[in-house]
């Protein structure tokens, strides 16, 4: 641990903070449906997820050799660039948590790295093709795969259990849901804690403490595992609420189908060499399960906000990362200023969140007032939106029949104002 400069120390602490935000940001992936269907008490769910994340951090011996997976050229990457990238990723994670939207922590880290690297070494340091294959394409594929699988699985399970009393099956679904949520937690700990280990190891290598290509020291593995577990236990209740209650209403069979689909997609994709984002797979699975039940609806207004957040994750984190790198380039005072801004920004976001706290006590309390209008709206939207093809819509418009648009219009505006109104009420 000797020869660690102040800058290196700051980077290590910042990486652990990112790991922590990664933990509470992604609790929802494993536990949102488990909590919303009542399969586990909220506190018990996050505790289990935290333990499994910690275990997962120690499970795999394969260490992330690159932190960006080839997105940027990591040769000669400076320590302060890593710092700037982490600042971008952390601030974006906190901001999306504040508004309760699930977004990929890895994409935030990639974005921060891209922004900081471009500011440091120019556009040539970014591999544009890899951005498409590693970020854009998976972002489209993940919700589709997981959503389709969850939808079909939901249909199937409702078909098989249609003659059976709901009460007698509830316990079984609960057990299944807990098992698949556990798998997701374990996989998350393995993947994401390793990402932080990779970042710290890379920083140690660039800082000259470790020889290139060396494995992370034990203290790095332990601290990364503990940071992600603590974050998970804290629980990103805002995101859990959105995923568990905001996107759709889930019954235990749906929760089970969604969670199983998410676990399968995550494991299959990482095993078959086409990594998909955990967050996007889980969100897609929840929506698919929502659509799979007869009369089930997806709140497209919430889903749209989530899609927008996904699209913004990379560029927004890149912008913050670039700005942070611009500052850290100025020398020691720039690094200090960036650190102060990071702490200040995080504190401001935390203060803002205190105005409408979401905790384990009220995570499942979503006002029925909000449910009713949005239920009608999304039903209307669900019945209008997917089936008509372009031609059908065009002919409807050509007819001049206002029937298609008028009922949707007021409903749509109430749907968009509804999520904004929700936090104020809590």
């Amino acid at each position, binding site marked *: 641990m000797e020869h660690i400069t102040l800058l290196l120390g700051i980077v290590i602490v910042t990486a652990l903070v990112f790991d922590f935000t990664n933990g509470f940001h992604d609790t929802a992936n494993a536990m949102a449906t488990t909590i919303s269907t009542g399969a586990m008490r909220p506190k018990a769910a996050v505790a289990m997820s935290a333990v499994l994340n910690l275990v997962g951090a120690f499970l*795999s011996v394969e260490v992330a050799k690159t932190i960006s997976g080839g997105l940027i050229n990591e040769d000669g990457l400076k320590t302060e660039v890593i710092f700037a990238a982490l600042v971008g990723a952390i601030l974006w994670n906190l901001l999306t948590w504040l508004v309760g939207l699930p977004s990929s922590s890895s994409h935030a880290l990639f974005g921060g790295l891209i922004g900081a690297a471009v500011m440091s070494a120019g556009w040539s340091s970014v591999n544009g093709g890899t951005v*498409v294959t590693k970020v854009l394409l998976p972002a489209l*594929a993940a919700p589709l795969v997981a959503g389709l*699988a969850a939808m079909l*699985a939901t249909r199937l399970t409702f078909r098989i259990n249609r003659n059976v009393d709901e009460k007698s099956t509830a316990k*079984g679904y609960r057990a299944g849901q807990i098992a698949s949520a556990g798998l997701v937690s374990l996989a998350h700990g393995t993947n994401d804690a390793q990402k932080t280990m990779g970042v710290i190891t890379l920083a140690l290598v660039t800082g000259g403490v470790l020889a290139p290509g060396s494995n992370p020291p034990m203290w790095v593995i332990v601290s990364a595992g503990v940071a992600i577990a603590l974050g998970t236990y804290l629980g990103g209740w805002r995101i859990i609420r959105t995923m568990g209650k905001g996107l759709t209403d889930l019954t235990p069979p749906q929760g089970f189908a969604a969670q199983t*689909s998410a676990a399968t*997609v995550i494991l*299959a994709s990482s095993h078959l060499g*086409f990594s998909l984002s955990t967050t996007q797979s889980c969100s897609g699975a929840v929506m698919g399960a929502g659509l799979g039940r007869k009369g089930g609806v997806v709140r497209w207004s919430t889903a749209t906000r989530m899609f927008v957040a996904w699209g913004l994750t990379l560029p927004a984190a890149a912008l913050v990362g670039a700005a942070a790198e611009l500052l850290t380039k100025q020398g020691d005072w720039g690094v200090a200023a960036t650190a102060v801004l990071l702490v200040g920004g995080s504190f401001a976001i935390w203060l803002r969140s205190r105005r409408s706290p979401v905790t384990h006590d009220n995570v499942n309390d979503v006002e029925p007032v909000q449910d009713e209008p949005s239920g009608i709206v999304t039903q209307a939207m669900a019945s209008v939106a997917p089936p008509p093809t372009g031609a059908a819509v065009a002919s409807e418009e050509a007819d001049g029949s206002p029937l298609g648009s008028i009922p949707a219009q007021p409903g749509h505006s109430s749907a968009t104002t509804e999520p904004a109104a929700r936090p104020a009420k809590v």
Partner: protein
Amino acid sequence: MDIDWAALGSVFGVSLVVTVALVGFFTLGIVGLSKAASGDQGGGSGVAAKAGGYLCFALCAAAVAYGIYIIVA
């Protein structure tokens, strides 16, 4: 920029099949056991339902074990 369509395709296929199969078997297991518990009038069919239910759960447990193996390996 080369997109690994084969990998993407296999992720699609494997995810769909495995998810649907797992959920299907698990539901069959639940239904089998609850039928065995409620329908004690049938005698032999109750035992069959119970055995089938446990078989389905065993398949699911094997899948979970394989999932853990993938994470560890």
